[in-house]
């Protein structure tokens, strides 16, 4: 890997961590656990389109671990990892099959990120009833995904050829 790419990806990790942290400081607007905008997904989506799954995967993985170690707990690491992993897999698949634009991909990413966290919560609490939180999480995942998708599109356009 050349120095330029190494630097760019390191910046991406730092940016994703900052976005994740800033977001965690916003007071929750609904009392449903797991509802968030997912701003750091902008970085993941951008990298998926600009570089590829290896780079996006690495940055995402490192960000999840560092963010949880620095600002969260082992529990938050588990939820974060499950959500990010499922979301990543789904987004990668959708990009490969080329059905949706970046917005559709982000929407799916947002929904499956929340779904992954719910599955993790069901396992941690040993109760499948936690899935009753899915409806608000699907809806918030869609809305967040639209926002992230639009922002990722803008970022990709502005940074075209520069990164």
């Amino acid at each position, binding site marked *: 890997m050349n120095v330029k790419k190494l630097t760019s990806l390191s910046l991406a990790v730092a940016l994703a961590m900052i976005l994740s942290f800033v977001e965690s400081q916003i007071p*929750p607007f609904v*009392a*449903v*656990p797991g509802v968030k905008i997912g701003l750091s997904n902008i970085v993941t989506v951008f990298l998926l389109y600009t570089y590829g799954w290896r780079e996006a995967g690495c940055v995402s993985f490192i960000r999840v671990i560092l963010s949880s170690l620095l600002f969260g*707990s082992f*529990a938050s690491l588990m*939820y974060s990892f499950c959500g990010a992993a499922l979301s990543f897999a789904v987004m990668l698949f959708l990009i490969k099959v080329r*059905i*949706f*634009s970046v*917005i*559709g991909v982000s*929407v*799916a990413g947002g*929904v499956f990120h929340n779904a992954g966290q719910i599955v993790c*919560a069901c396992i*941690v*609490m*040993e*109760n499948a*009833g*936690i*899935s*009753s*939180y*899915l*409806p*608000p999480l*699907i*809806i918030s*995942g*869609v809305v967040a995904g*639209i926002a992230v998708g639009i922002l990722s599109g803008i970022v990709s356009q502005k940074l075209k050829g520069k990164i």
Partner: protein
Amino acid sequence: MNKKIIKDLLLITVLLSLGIFAFLIIESGREEGACVKVTVGGELVCEYSLSEDGEYLLNGGTNLLIISDGKAFIKDADCPDGLCINQGKISLSGERIVCLPNRVMIEVIGDDGIFIN
């Protein structure tokens, strides 16, 4: 690009419909609750009847459960997000309040002891 946006809108509509539909199904299946089940980390700790008012400290004091007027809610908790305090009052079968950081959950059970989500 335009064709993809149409498919995006389709996806969004399908997902939103799914979410709303699932929500309506879950909510319509609810009945009057009889008691509240408290689990910590998945293990049943105790049950309280909704018909008796009371204040209970759960999980060694991390969460404060109040039952009053046939409804249960969390009044206080030491978790960092405090979402459990804002999850409102529950009284119908299958409704639940979850405190993920403390792994505490209170869940309403109906008269027959069996509930569908």
